[in-house]
């Protein structure tokens, strides 16, 4: 026997044996009773994984990952998909929610599949080539945002974190040393047991705050760094980012270094502020006086948020503006075609 698993609902136990068979028990009236025993993965099964009762995945010496669906009508598993890999598949693990599948190969490759929401099939999204020797174990944490890999061949345990932007798992950390059995909990605590003795080591995956240039290098607990100056810790991004909530005309931050600005404004990296985009302001000369004001073209002056006609320069104007592009005229004159013209209707 190589591996025994229990489904998330606690009602089914599946056991994979070295001869390639899978034996299944169901919980009936508080006792597990034999449901099915079938040859699943000849000539040798190395691993199996199941989270719901509906799907079973096996792997083995024949360099395949095999998918099995449970048919309630016949109370049995039937083969639905085979994936051929380029070496023996020593371990497979489904994430708790069955969205991801990871496999560790004898040649050091780690393959990650994501389940298609439309077809239900598992599509390969990533091949991790980090390890140089036999992979003996692969494990997800409970929320499937971390994978740990037991690199038995190159004596390394590595940790990978899911990055939605890259639609894959990115390298987070590694520990060198003889490794065989590994596990990870939901709070990023790891246990690693070697092959030659029973002394297992417990680890906590912590942020290395000295590597965040916007942190002062101080850890606040296991997974937060203290940030400098205008930066705030972003638990979503796992890094110090600009505090955009206190920045005028900013709406959010999509980068650690700048804030996204409201429409009509842009990020000024020299002053760490949102500046008005003067080139888009009508009648502007294009440059900024400050964050909110623009230089205006000839005959115009800045007024609150736009360039207004400078009525003091307009002949026969009283000096005041009717609006941005019109002046008030002295008695006997009316505004028309950008000048004060004599009001001929009263002449």
């Amino acid at each position, binding site marked *: 026997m190589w591996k*025994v698993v229990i489904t998330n609902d606690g009602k089914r136990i599946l056991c994979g044996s070295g001869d390639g068979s899978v*034996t299944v028990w169901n919980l009936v009236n508080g006792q597990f009773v034999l449901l099915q025993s079938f040859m699943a993965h000849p000539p040798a099964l190395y691993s199996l994984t199941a989270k719901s009762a509906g799907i079973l995945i096996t792997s083995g010496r024949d360099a395949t990952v095999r998918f099995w669906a449970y048919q309630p009508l016949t109370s049995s598993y039937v083969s639905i998909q085979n994936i*051929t890999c380029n070496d023996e598949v020593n371990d497979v693990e489904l994430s708790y929610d069955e969205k991801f599948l990871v496999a560790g190969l004898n040649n050091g490759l780690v393959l990650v599949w994501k389940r298609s929401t439309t077809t239900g099939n598992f599509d390969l999204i*990533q091949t991790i080539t980090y390890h140089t020797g036999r992979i003996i174990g692969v494990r997800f944490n409970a929320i499937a945002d971390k994978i740990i890999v037991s690199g038995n061949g190159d004596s390394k345990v590595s940790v990978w974190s899911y990055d939605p932007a890259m639609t894959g798992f990115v390298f987070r950390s*590694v520990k060198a040393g003889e490794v*065989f059995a590994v596990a990870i909990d939901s709070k990023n605590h790891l246990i690693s047991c070697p092959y030659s003795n*029973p002394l297992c080591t417990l680890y906590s995956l912590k942020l*290395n705050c000295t590597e965040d240039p916007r942190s002062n290098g101080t850890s606040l607990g296991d997974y937060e760094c203290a940030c400098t100056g205008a930066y705030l810790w972003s638990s979503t991004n796992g890094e110090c980012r600009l505090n955009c909530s206190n920045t005028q005309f900013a709406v959010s931050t999509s980068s650690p270094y700048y804030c996204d600005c409201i429409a009509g404004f842009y990020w000024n990296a020299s002053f760490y502020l949102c500046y008005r985009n003067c080139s888009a302001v009508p009648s502007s000369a294009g440059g900024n006086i400050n964050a909110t004001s623009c230089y205006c073209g000839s005959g115009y002056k800045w007024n609150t948020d736009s360039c207004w006609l400078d009525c003091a320069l307009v002949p026969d104007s009283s000096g005041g503006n009717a609006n941005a592009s019109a002046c008030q005229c002295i008695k006997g004159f009316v505004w028309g075609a950008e000048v004060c013209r004599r009001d001929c209707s009263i002449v």
Partner: protein
Amino acid sequence: MLRNLILFASILVVVFSGISKDYLSNTGTLDSTSKTSIDSVNFNENASCVARAFDFNIEIHCKNANGSYELHRNFTTLYKMYYTTFSADSQLLIAGGSNPQRVPASIVYVFGYSNTTLGFELQQNFTFDKST
């Protein structure tokens, strides 16, 4: 199968190996009186306990009041134990093993958490004739 081979070969091999922002801080060890290596290790759902399968043993270590793991149960078996894991709700612990000198050759143990003894107690075991 050929289609899958082609699909596999055609997929771009990518290594995501950015800057490490994490490090693994050593927080303790879990030893055993046995000299044998550990075949399988797993946390329960809230990591309050760790189960290990090795040699002819199933060990359960649970956290004490200080937050350190200490040996909670040690079940000795007649079968070489290969794998152990908790159920998702941590109420069950299962373990599997084999012994080719016994008939049937394989066994699965099911331990249930007892609110009376505040520990895992053997609930059921079933043997079957499968080799390793």
